[in-house]
């Protein structure tokens, strides 16, 4: 059934279709509609428990507790809320709990701001969570359903990111799958380890120098494994629902001389710009990075190994260095036996929700065309003069 809905509601429908059992969330702009819709959808549903909590730290803590009992668990937050969760994000991943969370990307304060950029979620890069960046409302809904399946298989939590307002509050047609089809795709969660009063065990107790190291190694192994699981799950999803996203998406990359690297909704805008260049006969392509963790280094190398120039668009910044996707892409190209290492341009734009229009992307492409290599690690686009 197709419905025209905002991104936040796509989240809510995805969560309900996944037969989530416990939701603990604290409202924050621009995530609020996720929780509103969920409370509406599960008001008469005794199989879902929606916990009202007093903070994001509590909501993630509640999710951890619930997930440890072996139920499917979800939360959603944004910006400062995500930052407030930071400590327990590590715990959720370290305890290997398949919690799924939506983070509606919003810039960090101060100064207070409500609009989109990716610094909130990218700041949580090293917590051990899978990170997905979505381009459309449809992708949001589909990713949530897939994320439960992926997380439950590899035992790591998933964070699904969508751009605040650009996706969260924009209506798009979304194909909402049938419940029975989702049930067939995503069966009940059968936890291997769970809290059981009839068979009590200690969880997360002090683990000495003998084992902690190995357990961290296992987390990395799970991340490595995640790549295949994401691809496999995506293929299975396509069989049922006809849509597939992968770790990355190549758009006219095969013969491209310049490849734009994008994430989130900017990928959508970039498609239009790429189409325009293609019509003029210019060989421009785009690589959309969908999963930031695990980072698809192999895919990046494979695609970039054939091009002449690369332009990375970052709606984020790691102060004192450069854009974060830019760093990751560059790092992926080093050390390995890559035959062709094209110059990589790092563009920072759209921080704090400033619109990244086709003109901006055109400016980026033009700059990349005109210059043989970047003068600096950061090229600022759209700054006031």
């Amino acid at each position, binding site marked *: 059934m197709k419905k025209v809905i905002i991104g936040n509601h796509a989240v809510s429908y995805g969560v309900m279709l996944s037969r989530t059992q416990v939701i603990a969330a604290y409202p924050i702009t621009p995530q609020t509609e996720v929780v509103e819709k969920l409370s509406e959808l599960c008001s008469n549903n005794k199989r879902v428990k929606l916990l009202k909590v007093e903070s994001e730290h509590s909501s993630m803590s509640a999710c951890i507790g619930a997930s440890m009992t072996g139920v499917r668990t979800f939360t959603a937050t944004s910006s400062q809320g995500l930052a407030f969760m930071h400590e327990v994000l590590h715990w959720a991943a370290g305890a290997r709990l398949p919690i799924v969370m939506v983070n509606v990307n919003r810039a960090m304060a101060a100064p207070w701001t409500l609009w989109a950029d990716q610094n909130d979620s990218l700041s949580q890069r090293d917590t051990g969570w899978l990170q997905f960046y979505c381009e459309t409302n449809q992708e949001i809904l589909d990713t949530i359903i897939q994320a439960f399946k992926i997380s439950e298989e590899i*035992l790591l939590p998933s964070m699904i990111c969508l751009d605040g307002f650009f996706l969260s509050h924009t209506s798009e047609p979304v194909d909402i799958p049938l419940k029975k089809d989702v049930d067939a795709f995503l069966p009940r969660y059968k936890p291997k*380890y769970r809290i059981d009063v009839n068979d*009590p*065990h*200690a969880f997360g107790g002090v683990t000495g120098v*003998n084992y902690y190291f190995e*357990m961290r190694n296992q987390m990395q192994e799970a991340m490595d494994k995640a790549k295949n699981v994401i691809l496999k799950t995506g293929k299975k999803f396509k069989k049922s629902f006809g849509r597939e996203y992968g770790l990355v998406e190549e758009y006219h990359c095969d013969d491209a001389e310049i490849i734009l690297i994008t994430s989130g909704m900017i990928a959508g805008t970039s498609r239009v710009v790429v189409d325009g260049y293609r019509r003029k006969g210019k060989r421009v392509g785009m690589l959309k990075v969908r999963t930031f963790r695990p980072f698809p280094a192999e895919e990046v190398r494979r695609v970039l190994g054939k091009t002449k120039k690369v332009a990375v668009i970052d709606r984020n910044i790691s102060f004192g260095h450069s854009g974060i996707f830019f760093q990751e892409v560059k790092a992926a190209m080093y050390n390995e036996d890559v035959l062709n290492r094209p110059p990589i341009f790092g563009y920072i734009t759209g921080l704090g929700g400033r619109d990244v229009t086709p003109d901006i992307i055109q400016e980026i492409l033009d700059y990349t065309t005109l210059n043989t290599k970047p003068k600096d690690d950061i090229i600022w686009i759209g700054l006031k003069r």
Partner: protein
Amino acid sequence: MSKKLKLDRRKDIPPIAISLESTLSIKTGTWRYFSPLHKNKIPPCKHECPINQDVQGFIELITQDKFDKALKLIRRDNPFAAVTGRVCYHPCQTVCNREYFDGYVSIAALERAASDYGLYTEKKKATRNKKKKVAILGGGPSGLTCAYHLRMRGYQITVFEELSVLGGMLRVGIPDYRLPKNILDREISKIVDMGVEVKTNTKIGRDIDIQELENRYDAMFIATGAHLNRKLNILGESLKGVISGLKFLRDINLGRKVSLGKKVIVIGGGNTAFDAARLALRLGSRTTIIYRRTQEQMPAYIEEIEQGIEEEIEILYLTIPIKITENNEKGLTVECVKARLGDVDASGRRRPIPISGSNFFIKADTVISAIGEDADLSYLPKKLRCQKGVITTDENGVSSCFKIFAGGDVTDQPRTVAHAIGSGKRVAMAIHKALGGKTLKKPEEDLPVIEHEKINQDYFEEQKRIETPILTPTKRMRNTKEVKQGLKKDMAVKEAMRCFGCGICNQCENCLIFCPDLAVERDSDSFKVLYDYCKGCGICMLECPRGVITMEKEPIE
């Protein structure tokens, strides 16, 4: 118990930190210094009640709309629920722990509601009649309560009463507007109908010899009360027109006509004084109370004083009558002197000291003296030890003579309905024991009385007390209808809900829910602490709304 872990190879290590063995092998109970114990405590209302009634118990039954059962529970101790629900001075309310939250629970009104809406009558005859016979001297609350409890246990009871009707002070000392006669009749007839023999118009010493009773009965209970009006000891006391408060109340209560004239002076500050004054008002007289101390020292119940003032009784405090004279024309003149308060006297109250030269005169048609009552001890056998005008007994009413017991106002205890009923109950138990009966009741364990600090008020919602409706002063004066009206049934249930249930477990399961070690389990209708695992953290104690759980130091088996 726990074996040494050997996880030398990477693949043996689980992905999450989970104990390989069940944590049940870890007996965290060894960490404990204090052990929680579920043990019901004594609520202050019960502790303070002279009858030791299960107040919390009957209130809980009212919350469940079980008025019959509530009445049955009250009648286990007290066969006069309708009476105490109206005229008891309710010390239970004074100590109610809810007073520290949003005001005491209207216990008296609830007791009355139980008697108003509950239906319960004991079986006509005791199941097994014993041969033993008990004589009860005095058909007041104390004597009848004793008769009730002993009759329940099968004894042959004979009650001897000087007056033509039973009830004692309840009958002749309390006006209708506080205790309607039909209510009293109902309660008394329930006791008599159990098969109690009653001999009215029988005065001991006049109509029957006490020695004869002693011989004929296996035990004797003296509960003849205090019906002698204390003397004023001033000039003019014996003048016509100076009457005793007790006699006045008795005459009115027995339906005799009394004419007081236009202006009445009542001397005294106790309940009899207020009863007499308020009755005089209702007979159409202007009434003044003369009291030698201030309101603070008045022995009358505050409720009586307040209602009296509402009804526009004039009260002259710090006023001592010194002489009553007859006027030339008609009526009396009372000469008074003003007083000031001096040091504390034997009664614990400040002594009034006359101020010389402050004499003044008040005119009246009738003077009612009501400064206290004394017991008539003249008919008692010489061997019975008496002291300070009352029979000497221990707390169970055991006197100095074998098989003679005494209780109520004729003994040394506060002269209240509740104390009379309480002593009647205790004496019944003592007689039962003396005549070879088994005491079924466990001796009151030395359980602590629950203090308000032990109540976790976070679990209770504020709810204003439902006040007992009271007739307006103008409505009251038109007739002798009851001043205090009862609570409606639904109001009573609502008011009962306010009871904290201090110290009594109602199985809310907070202990079970909050225990971080899952060391509290249900055990049929109570709880079991798994002492193998309880660390003694005390969270269950803190989270118990009613203070049932205590932390005890010694190890508990």
